[in-house]
């Protein structure tokens, strides 16, 4: 239903409705049309993902009830919206709740520690003969045991209550978890102690000492809570990256409405709104600059540390920070459609996915707890039978409790997901978006990287590399001025390259007038520039105009052609004056990236639709040996398949648009230079920057994360495989070693914390 109407101007009001029953984009479009066509509605935007409609309307003409009715008449539902919060607010609410939970956990831990600190020394009185004698003479051992019982009860009923309740609830579901082990272990020690306290005679008539284990019970709970406190702290840090991303979202926007700037909550910003941004302010949403020039810090989204210069028509992104100038922009995307929201979604999805390596751990943890319970029961039975009558019960009990307490399924459960969370978060911070845990796992096995040439290895746009004067009768500066003036009238990419080169090498305040401009398709351009006939084009164009080419010019042109450059000749008043070479240039970082991959033992292959000569020239520049040239766009997939048939794990790096099928076919599809347009379904890894070194960083990150997961899994397995037999007393017959349940509790508490701490190490690695 209608959730707010906070923003209301003299003429317009904005409201957010929750729409139900939409299943596809066409439903959303239909609801949007319905609302937009309702009399009195200025604008409406429906977001399918968030199931919300934002409507700007004239309250004097249409009211909120009519809007709801319009939606309902269109066949969709309008329900009361319980949580009208944006992601940042939701994250804040979660954070507040977690802090409250953490405070409560700490309080329970402090109570347990304080009481255990009293219980421990009191339980050890029998170790000091004088003190033991004193107690016997004064209050008596049974009274002391009652005091210990009274001190232990709060530990159980307050600090450890959650474990018993949870164990009971899981038992009803025919499942068992960590809490089952803690509850059964401490419960057994406590029950035994209570019997020994209330009816010591029962033990004494069998020649046994009525020993109590209150210290064990209290200490185990205190130690487990310590583990939980440390775990909660560490766990909060594993999701720090996503919290940081969510926190980037602006809360308000300065929207120009009815001729004035109004600060409105971000949820009320609509597509098409004009927003003003001052220096130092956060940009509210995605859009296009209408007026003004500035530099924008986009590092939070792309990992690019240098601010990006932006002018009229340039795209800006929500969550980035305006550094210097003042500008206005038109919102093109809002809410879940923005680049930031998509990045958050992508990272969240990756963190919710499962890595194949986790399967074994999953299988083990699904049978773990009941299996440990069975082992503990058998331990009890074996020791009860093996030990002399007077010590067998306490002996069997202690080992039974130790087995239950040392076993730690949590470490197994945490091993993979925590490393994946930290790893994908680290990637996002560096502009490397990993689609799923599986992609991250695959990336560390890459043996071949296939690089698309244009736009990946190279900049993908032609640049003038040579401007060779062959006649000095006109000054170079003037020649460049003519060239810029003429080519300014053409829209061809080669012409733009010439204009850019000429204006940069010889800056002029204005361009010269051009008359009779003609662009000859596939050949070049001609025109009268400041009264002179200027022609820039290929040999064919010159021949057609009867311009004679001497040997020198031919040689220069041939040399440039041999370097795979597009060659043009410029003539003024019928005589050749300069030879121009244009080529797509290699990105500065490509060579370094290729070498880094090769150093890691990865074969680098180049794929291009260009001819072999051009391909080889570029390959030589960057150090690539294997080339697939003259490959038509639809054949790229076949190249990937061919490499896969050679038994290789193939990563394909491309721009994500033309290369989508090949990216999907590859074991790891890497879309490069997404900028902030990250909706790349085909890619398993999306790189925000156009820097091939990020491919290397991505592979490194994958290797580090996988190594971390393996360490975690190894630790978790070995810990349980060694700990359980030790606690069961397997070494006792040979070495006399037994594990105190309290030591077992300390080991258990630390095992999960160790796994988490190891995963958090990934945050500090340099990639």
């Amino acid at each position, binding site marked *: 239903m209608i959730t707010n109407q906070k923003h209301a101007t003299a003429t317009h009001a904005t409201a957010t409705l929750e729409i139900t029953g939409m299943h596809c984009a066409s439903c959303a479009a239909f609801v949007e049309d319905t609302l937009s066509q309702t009399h009195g509605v200025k604008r409406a935007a429906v977001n399918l993902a968030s199931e919300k409609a934002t409507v700007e309307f004239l309250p004097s003409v249409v009211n909120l009830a009519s809007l709801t009715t319009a939606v309902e008449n269109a066949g969709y539902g309008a329900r009361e919206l319980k949580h009208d919060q944006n992601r940042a607010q939701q994250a804040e609410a979660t954070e507040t709740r977690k802090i409250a*939970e953490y405070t409560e956990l700490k309080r329970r831990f402090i109570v347990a520690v304080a009481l255990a600190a009293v219980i421990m020394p009191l339980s050890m009185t029998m170790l000091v003969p004088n003190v033991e004698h004193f107690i016997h003479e004064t209050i008596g051992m049974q009274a002391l045991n009652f005091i210990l019982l009274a001190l232990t009860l709060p530990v159980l009923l307050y600090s450890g209550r959650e474990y018993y309740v949870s164990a009971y*609830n899981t038992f009803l*579901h025919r499942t068992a978890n960590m809490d089952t082990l803690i509850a059964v272990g401490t419960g057994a020690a406590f029950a035994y102690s209570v019997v020994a306290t209330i009816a010591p005679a029962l033990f004494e008539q069998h020649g046994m000492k009525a020993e109590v284990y209150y210290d064990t019970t209290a200490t185990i709970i205190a130690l487990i809570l310590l583990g939980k406190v440390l775990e909660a702290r560490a766990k909060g840090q594993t999701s720090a990256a996503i919290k940081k991303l969510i926190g980037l979202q602006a809360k308000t926007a300065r929207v120009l409405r009815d001729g004035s700037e109004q600060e409105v909550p971000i949820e009320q910003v609509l597509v098409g709104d004009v927003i003003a941004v001052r220096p130092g302010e956060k940009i509210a949403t995605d859009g296009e600059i209408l007026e003004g020039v500035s530099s924008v810090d986009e590092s939070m989204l792309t990992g690019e540390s240098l601010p990006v210069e932006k002018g009229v028509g340039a795209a800006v992104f929500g969550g980035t920070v305006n550094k210097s100038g003042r500008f206005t922009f038109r919102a093109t995307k809002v809410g879940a459609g923005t680049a930031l929201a998509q990045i958050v979604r992508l990272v969240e999805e990756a963190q919710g996915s499962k890595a194949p390596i986790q399967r074994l751990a999953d299988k083990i943890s699904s049978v773990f707890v009941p299996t440990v319970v069975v082992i503990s029961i058998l331990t009890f039975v074996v020791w009860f039978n093996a030990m002399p009558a007077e010590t067998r019960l306490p002996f069997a009990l202690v080992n039974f409790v130790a087995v239950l307490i040392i076993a730690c399924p949590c470490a197994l459960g945490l091993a993979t997901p925590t490393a994946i969370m930290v790893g994908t978060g680290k990637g996002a911070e560096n502009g490397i978006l990993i689609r799923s845990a599986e992609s991250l796992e695959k990336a560390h096995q890459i043996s071949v990287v296939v690089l698309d040439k244009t736009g990946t290895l190279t900049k993908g746009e032609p640049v003038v590399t040579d401007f060779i004067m062959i006649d000095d009768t006109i000054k170079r500066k003037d020649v460049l001025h003519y060239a810029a003036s003429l080519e300014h009238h053409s829209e061809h990419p080669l012409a733009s390259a010439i204009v850019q080169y000429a204006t940069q090498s010889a800056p002029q305040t204005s361009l010269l007038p051009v008359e009779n401009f003609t662009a000859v398709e596939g050949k070049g351009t001609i025109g009268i520039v400041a009264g002179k006939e200027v022609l820039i084009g290929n040999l064919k164009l010159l021949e057609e105009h009867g311009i004679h080419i001497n040997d020198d010019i031919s040689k220069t042109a041939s040399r440039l052609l041999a370097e795979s450059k597009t060659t043009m000749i410029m003539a003024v008043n019928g005589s050749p004056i300069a030879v121009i070479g244009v080529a797509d240039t290699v990105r500065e970082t490509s060579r370094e990236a290729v070498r880094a991959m090769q150093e890691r033992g990865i074969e680098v292959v180049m794929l291009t639709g260009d001819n072999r000569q051009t391909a080889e020239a570029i390959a030589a520049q960057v150090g690539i040996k294997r080339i697939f040239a003259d490959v038509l766009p639809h054949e790229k997939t076949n190249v990937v398949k061919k490499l896969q048939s050679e038994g290789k794990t193939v990563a394909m790096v491309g721009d994500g648009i033309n290369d989508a099928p090949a990216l999907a076919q590859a074991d790891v599809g890497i879309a490069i230079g997404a900028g902030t347009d990250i909706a790349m379904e085909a890619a398993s890894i999306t790189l925000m920057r156009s820097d091939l070194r990020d491919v290397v960083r991505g592979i490194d990150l994958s290797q580090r994360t996988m190594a971390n997961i393996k360490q975690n899994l190894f630790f978790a397995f070995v810990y349980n495989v060694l700990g359980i037999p030790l606690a069961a007393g397997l070494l006792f017959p040979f070495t006399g070693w037994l594990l105190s349940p309290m030591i077992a509790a300390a080991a258990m508490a630390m095992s999960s914390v160790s796994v988490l701490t190891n995963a958090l190490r990934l945050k500090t690695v340099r990639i």
Partner: protein
Amino acid sequence: MDTSQILVTLGGIGLAVFVVWYFFLGKRTAQAAALNDSGMQEIAITVKGGYSPDIIEVEQGKPVRLKFYRDETSSCSEELIFSEFKLRRDLPAFETTIIDILPTNKGTFEFTCGMNMLRGKLLVR
């Protein structure tokens, strides 16, 4: 072997057999999600030491709304992981968390708690 040893041995073995039967061999029943007013297959799931129901039947290709109500504070159930749908959600205690999914493939998909101890299944038919 004295009497108490025989009793402990028989009791222990009996208990172990019970544990295996109770946790591994018990039969569980599935519950089908029902269509709601907006045409979604909807089902309410209580999270309390496990998921009730823990086997949910849905039809392929139709949107599903899972309403998880966490009726406890035990930290074990605070997170829900549904990896088939790439979901990792916090379930606040004593609140309903709505999860909408679209099952496009037939099969059995498991959802678990953060540490893979509590388990439930979505059967897509």
